[in-house]
């Protein structure tokens, strides 16, 4: 049966038959609906701007999260799993993008919404945070929570500085490893010096200075330390050129947070306290968040 025969399917498809018309109509009606269904299911809903909460264990990340959600800090313990919550910027803070909108505008309300993502700070569970850093699609900013009281002693400072160093290095790698010349979207970092209500806590500017010093030390000893086992153990070759990357201005001289601006990361240090006798005081943090929104 050739294609030009009267009862071949191709002839039938072009013939003015009732069945052909019915099938064509059905196709015309259903195809757009099916396509619509498919595309709208695949497309993710518009994501809220995310703020990542990072920091060593016991610095007050989860407490700040609950404060943001309930306006009062809840009792918390060491986290073992990440948690994301949707929070609203408190009244009195105007998102930067909504500066000229009136408070009744629905777009204004929408601009105030944000997502806070809490990560466990324990040394063994930091992969939750680092996984976010590698591919920060919706991350608008990073809040690195520091216990200002524990930074006063050597051990606490070292742990904090090392974590902060790794985080900043990951951000820098993201910038220098970008394929386009424009570079990836900027991710600002807030170092939130928490627990300022404690007597032993360092004031924010001292936190900044001691962290900068400690990071210089970390960088120095990293440069001198033994090489990573990646290549020797038969790992991938890309580990080779990674080793030449040092934080801030080629790793020379003293490290300052200012140097991070070159790689698209501005670092601010603000004090506050989530808990405390006279209530919480996280105004400066919210101001920073409002600025990024």
């Amino acid at each position, binding site marked *: 049966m050739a294609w030009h025969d009267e009862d071949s399917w191709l002839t039938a498809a072009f013939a003015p038959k009732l069945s052909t018309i019915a099938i064509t109509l059905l196709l015309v009606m259903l195809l757009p609906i099916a396509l619509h269904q498919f595309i709208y299911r695949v497309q993710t809903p518009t994501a809220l701007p995310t703020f990542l909460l990072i920091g060593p264990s016991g610095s007050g990340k989860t407490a700040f999260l*609950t404060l943001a959600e309930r306006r009062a800090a809840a*009792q918390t313990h060491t986290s*073992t799993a990440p948690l*994301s919550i949707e929070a609203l910027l408190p009244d009195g803070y105007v998102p930067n993008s909504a500066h000229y909108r009136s408070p009744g505008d629905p777009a204004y309300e929408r601009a105030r919404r944000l997502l806070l993502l809490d990560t466990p700070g324990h040394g063994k569970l930091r992969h939750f945070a680092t996984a976010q850093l590698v591919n920060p699609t919706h991350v608008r900013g990073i809040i690195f929570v520091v216990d200002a009281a524990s930074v006063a002693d050597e051990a606490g400072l070292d742990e904090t500085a090392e974590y902060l160093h790794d985080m900043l290095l990951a951000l820098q790698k993201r910038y220098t490893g970008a394929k386009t010349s424009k570079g990836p979207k900027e991710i600002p970092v807030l170092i939130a010096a928490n627990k300022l209500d404690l007597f032993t806590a360092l004031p924010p500017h001292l936190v900044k200075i001691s962290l900068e010093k400690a990071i210089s030390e970390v960088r120095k000893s990293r440069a001198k330390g*033994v090489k990573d*086992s990646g290549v020797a*153990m038969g790992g991938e070759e890309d580990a080779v050129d990674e080793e030449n990357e040092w934080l801030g201005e080629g790793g020379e001289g003293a490290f300052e947070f200012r140097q991070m601006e070159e790689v698209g990361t501005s670092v601010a240090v603000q004090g506050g306290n989530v808990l405390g006798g006279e209530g919480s005081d996280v105004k400066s943090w919210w101001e920073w968040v409002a600025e990024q929104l």
Partner: protein
Amino acid sequence: MLDTFEILTTSGVVLWSRTYVPVGANIINSLIRDVFIEERIIPQQEDAGYHPTYRKEGYTLKWTQAKDLGLIFVAVYQSLVHLTWIDKLLDNVRALFTGLYGEQLNSNRSNSSTLDTQKFNPYFDRQIQDLEGTSDESLNVKLTPPSSSGNDSAEESAPTLPVLQKPQRPLYDTSADSTPVPTPDTSRPTTPAPSHLLTGKAKPGAKLSRRDRKKAAGFGSAPASSGDEASVKRKGKSSTKKNRTWGEFGAEEEDPSVVLDYSQADLKGDAPEAEALEEIKQETWGRKTGKGQFVLKDLDEEMDAIIAEQNAKKESSAPSSGLVGSSLGAIGGLFRNVVGGKTLTKEDLAKSLRGMEDHLLKKNVAREAAVRLCESVERDLTGLKTSSFTTVESTIRTSMEKALTKILTPTSSLDLLREIQTVNASGRPYVLSIVGVNGVGKSTNLSKIAFFLLQNHHRVLIAAADTFRSGAVEQLGVHVRNLKELSHREGGEVDIFQKGYGKDAANIAADAVQYAAKNNFNVVLIDTAGRRHNDQRLMSSLEKFAKLAKPDKILMVGEALVGTDSVAQARNFNASFGPGRGLDGFVISKCDTVGDMVGTLVSMVHATGIPVVFLGTGQHYADLRGLNVGTVTRLLMS
């Protein structure tokens, strides 16, 4: 007596807690750290209804988990007190809490951490009373505190109350179904009469209070109130019946501010609901003073129902009955295995886990460690749903990768250079000592570490504390000679401290530290004699060594070649330095000879929880590497 009972999520937020005696937050934090994160203490089998225990600072902690909801239930009490009913309490509270809030937790899992658990108080109190076996009198007396505490807390929760009410509805609906049935025909025939009487009284009282309220609030509009009355007439009977038991734990409605809130909700169009709420209040208040016990009985029944339901759910999920049902289930299971969305049970996991265990054994992981890893994966996955389009195997794989990463990642910093700096700043030399079984490469790795330190311009003294094996001192002497030549240009300085053979190793080590302090060396590396880890005679001398030389760091060298024995080696060496002192890290030597069979690393870390500091990867002085967790995990899973 119980000190504290807490219900918290894995993300660290406390959902509900009851404190009888304040307990520091660090107690539960250390439980989470030691048990859930570092897995230092393996929980025992949970059969026979016994939950694992954890002891810390005079407290005993017992806990249980609801894994699918990410909840942890912890009971804390003094170790001196022996409480036999804690296991039962944990079980019951878990069943109650998951029954009451399970759906809510599941639904608002995304982007919220709040859960109102005010209502849980009476349930918990009742459980405690039941289990403590108090008498009926004390029961009647104890009835009031929960409700009054509810009254106190009402003010804080007032604004959010209308929202809270909705999720509670299913709860009182079930109770409403159960209450009228048992009341007429059980052994207390007096119940129906007073309850009817009371409902009759309650109505006018309710209306009156409504009007008063409206006047006070300035909403005195006639049409609105008449409409309300109509709704009362319509709804009156059913709602009063329904809400009788419910009001028992919702007694906070007594508060005027809450009531005011309802009138406002009323205006928005929630009239019937608000009406219902207020009527309960009137009625339960009347009832409570007189016949508190009946109300409590209802609560009891409800509680038992919830627990029974949870238990039934648990049992029914395990076996599937009937030929058709089972075969359909099998087909469905196969399908789900491919598509995902299957709830994992132990049986599902068993086969794949055995395969995973074999795979790990092939990678030279000691059997004990492999079993433990698989158990931890099983604990991690049982009761979870596989995500869409993932098979059980791949779920296990990712979970195993996660478990390996978690084990191998060190908890504390391993930066040797910084530690040396800190110790030297306090004006004494940094002492590092190396122990291990015979022939694993102690001296070789010691000289590698020495080379690494010399490159960083340290002044290193090597102490030959191996006074046993012939040629050991000379061997170190050769190393030192080589290192001297190599470091000549670099600016480091190295020397050997030796006292010949036959002397006591501990004394030599102590002398070496003194000598180093005097002669301005800032690092002392002590080589020790190799010893068999199961020879008590040889191992006992290590305790004295640790006491005299006081090393800042004790590293144990282990071969990558060794198999199952690695677990015992690591354990025995870790325990040999006396109480309060253990190993600080491992050096795994000969890693270049095993290819991808790097299981020894995992075995040793798993046995002791001590991190791997260095890897020996070749014959040269420079062949010393840090551990790359990602690479090792990849090698093990390949």
